[in-house]
């Protein structure tokens, strides 16, 4: 049993709770009295990095969060963006990195559970999940186990709750050997005038608990997520929770049914820091207080202390405030869905949370001090030393190749570029009949029932770029996401991010963080994409080895008409192939350097935001005018990989292509360099003139570079054959490689 109030609080105990003695002193000073042990537990979780954002809040203010479509920005369970026709999209991305490293299956599963709750808490029906995964090197001994566990966990939880997993990304790099990343995204739809918030308003209104029972799960999970790993993390193991996706499914349906009632006042899920967090935050948002009686909480285990009950992170639980007098109706509804529930408290006038255990007072704390009291830390920053070593490519040892086939094949079979069907076929990507664009093209596309619109979703981050230049790397992440959306026929309307970094107490890490957030902010402002929600995950390191900075972004795009939906694969023999954008002689941070020469160096590719925006605009307008048959973003592996993918990825009929490129840049840079803001398109020959004119009018570089047809990919550079390879043999490599690493 942990946490009897008779335990004396020593400096050691304070530190074990993740608070500095300074913070502890500040709390007692402001409170004007001593804390008891349960209260210490509350501050421990609420002032943890995970809940208080004390290292990051100052910087996050730089992100643009408003716009004409934004109905709810950061601060609530999820962001909300208006998509017209009386419908709004609710979305957010969250990390579940540390638990997934300790227990991949359950860690990833409960991550999905958590993000789903953030969405349906607002009254939205979740309609799509995505995930962004980072594992250690593909030959690291633990990678296979971790990948299998994480993918199975996501698959089992998402599939069982009936929410399709429609896209994502997966990367392997040794910087994640000791600290994997599992970021999960969820999007839901809601009538734009029926958004529910986590407010405990209305003095005298009952506070109702519902969902699964509370057990001793994950006590201290939130503070675990806020401290780096060391050998003793092994000891923290039993704090991993087991998810119950069946309970979550019932919770979704019960919540959505509940929210049809006009007597629901405010609702919030119990995520990190469980009952404590939802109680204090709901009171905090409404400027009220709450009286809570713990003996009314449905319990799975006997003899839990108030400390345990308050800090438990048992999954699949919610807290709702309803209008006084409607308790019976609410409880009957939960009963219909076989959920446990109980009236556990009441909204009060004074902004204080008082918690009782069988009538005995155990906690009495002012809401504001707990929720907002942690001071923003302006941690010191310092440009990292490593950058001096890696910031240029030593080109002299990299000879210009005479043929490209071997490089192409090595890249196609490399873990980061190879096809990901081994992952996404384990996810139900189709349930609920909205997924027009299945995994396997640039962005996932979902129709919006009840309108002619559709939504496009993409999640991206090249963390190697971010390691080499976090500012530009973060900009590129935003730009790439926006480009994926454009290729699929949509226009970006909102963004959510998950900022995964190392230990913020290290000034070099804090510098990466500052740079990345600034870069992201600048790109978002330029593209006019509001950031409506997000998540910060710090302390992603093991024994002092930090991960690459990984500011993952997910962009939501809107297709005004679902007929704009465009896929990446070539469709018709005889179609012309064109390239929008410019190719420069750039190698920095490329997959080419990494796979062929095992080097991580150079500046990431240049990004001209202005060009990036006009490239996307051109692509989208061409799509809207029905001038294109396919569009595909050039990213890792460059033009050659984009070409090969456009040839191979048709679900039934792969196509060949013949290209004739004229260029002054080295042929390896031309085909495998990763210059930004390029889109590979195909079009019917009759539309060539229209496309060329449009590009000219918009002052965007555009060249026709070849045509679709045949059984091989043939690339001639300046009149000389550089690549000739059968599509069928490329496809075999590309489809089979991932399984050889992780299957």
């Amino acid at each position: 049993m942990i946490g009897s109030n008779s335990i004396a609080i020593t400096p050691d105990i304070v530190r074990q709770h993740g608070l500095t003695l300074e913070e502890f002193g500040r709390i007692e000073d402001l409170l004007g009295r001593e804390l008891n042990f349960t209260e210490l537990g509350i501050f421990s979780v609420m002032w943890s990095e995970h809940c208080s954002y004390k290292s990051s809040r100052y910087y996050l203010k730089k992100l643009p969060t408003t716009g004409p479509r934004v109905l709810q920005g950061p601060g609530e369970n999820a962001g909300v963006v208006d998509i017209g026709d009386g419908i709004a999209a609710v979305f957010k991305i969250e990390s579940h990195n540390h638990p997934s490293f300790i227990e991949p299956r359950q860690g990833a599963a409960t991550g999905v559970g958590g993000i789903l709750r953030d969405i349906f808490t607002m009254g939205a029906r979740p309609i799509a999940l995505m995930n962004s995964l980072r594992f250690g090197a593909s030959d690291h001994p633990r990678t296979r186990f971790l990948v299998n566990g994480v993918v199975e966990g996501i698959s089992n939880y998402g599939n069982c709750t009936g929410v399709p997993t429609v896209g994502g990304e997966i990367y392997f790099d040794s910087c994640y050997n000791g600290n994997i990343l599992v970021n999960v995204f969820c999007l839901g739809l809601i009538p734009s005038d029926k958004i529910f918030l986590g407010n405990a308003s209305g003095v005298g209104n009952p506070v109702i608990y519902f969902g699964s029972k509370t057990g001793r799960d994950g006590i201290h999970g939130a503070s675990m997520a806020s401290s780096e790993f060391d050998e003793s993390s092994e000891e923290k193991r039993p704090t991993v929770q087991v998810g119950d996706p069946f309970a979550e499914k019932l919770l979704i349906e019960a919540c959505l049914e509940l929210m049809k009632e006009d007597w629901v006042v405010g609702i919030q899920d119990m995520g990190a820091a469980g009952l404590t967090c939802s109680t204090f935050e709901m009171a905090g948002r409404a400027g009220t207080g709450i009286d809570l009686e713990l003996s009314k909480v449905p319990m799975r285990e006997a003899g839990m202390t108030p400390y345990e009950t308050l800090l438990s992170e048992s999954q699949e639980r919610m807290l709702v405030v309803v209008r006084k007098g409607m308790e019976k109706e609410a409880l009957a509804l939960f009963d219909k869905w076989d959920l446990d529930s109980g009236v556990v408290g009441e909204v009060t006038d004074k902004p204080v949370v008082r918690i009782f255990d069988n009538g005995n007072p155990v906690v009495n704390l002012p809401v504001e001090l707990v929720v907002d009291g942690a001071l923003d830390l302006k941690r010191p920053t310092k440009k990292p030393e490593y950058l001096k070593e890696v910031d240029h490519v030593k080109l002299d040892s990299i000879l210009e190749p005479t043929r490209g086939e071997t490089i192409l094949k090595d890249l196609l079979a490399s873990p980061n570029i190879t096809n990901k069907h081994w992952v996404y076929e384990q996810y139900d990507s189709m349930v609920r009949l909205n997924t027009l664009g299945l995994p396997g093209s640039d962005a996932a596309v979902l129709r919006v029932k009840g309108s002619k619109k559709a939504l496009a979703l993409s999640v991206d981050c090249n963390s190697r770029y971010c390691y080499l230049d976090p500012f530009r790397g973060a900009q590129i992440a935003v730009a790439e996401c926006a480009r994926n959306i454009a290729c699929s026929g949509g226009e970006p309307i909102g963004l959510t991010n998950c900022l995964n970094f190392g230990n913020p107490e290290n000034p070099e890490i804090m510098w990466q963080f500052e740079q990345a957030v600034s870069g992201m902010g600048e790109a978002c402002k330029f593209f006019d994409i509001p950031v409506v929600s997000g998540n910060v995950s710090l302390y992603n390191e093991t024994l002092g080895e930090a991960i690459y900075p990984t500011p993952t972004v997910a962009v939501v795009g809107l297709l005004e008409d679902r007929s704009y939906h465009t896929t990446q694969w070539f469709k018709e023999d005889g179609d012309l192939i064109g390239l929008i954008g410019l190719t420069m002689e750039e190698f920095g941070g490329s997959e080419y350097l990494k796979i062929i020469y095992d080097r991580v160096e150079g500046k990431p590719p240049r990004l001209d935001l202005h060009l990036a925006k006009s490239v996307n605009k051109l692509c989208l307008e061409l799509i809207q005018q029905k001038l294109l048959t396919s569009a595909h973003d050039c990213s890792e592996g460059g033009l050659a990989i984009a070409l090969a993918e456009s040839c191979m990825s048709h679900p039934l009929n792969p196509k060949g292509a013949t290209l004739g490129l004229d260029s002054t840049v080295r042929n390896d840079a031309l085909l495998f360099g990763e210059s930004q803001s390029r889109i590979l398109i195909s079009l019917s020959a009759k539309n060539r003139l229209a496309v060329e004119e449009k590009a000219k009018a918009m002052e965007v570089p555009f060249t026709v570079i070849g045509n679709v047809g045949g059984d091989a990919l043939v690339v001639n550079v300046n009149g000389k054959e550089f690549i000739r390879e059968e599509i069928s043999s490329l496809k075999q490599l590309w489809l089979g490689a991932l399984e050889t690493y992780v299957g």
Partner: protein
Amino acid sequence: MKAKIYITFKDGVLDPQGKAVHHALKDLGYNEVSGIQMGKYLELTMDGVSREEAEIRVTEMCEKLFANTVIESYRFTIEPEE
């Protein structure tokens, strides 16, 4: 040798399956059941090893493969084959 291995959730860890099955038993009128734990059961046939060796090997297998010791515990018995 024959090893029989039982794997169950550790105390205090939620057993979602057990919970659902318990619920179903109640609906079917089996009210005398007050608790239920669901787990996995494995039977291994092992050749050419002594009981002592088998014990060491099976412990290893449980730790490495069969049980997820973060949330599960295991126990086993070893007997000569009938």
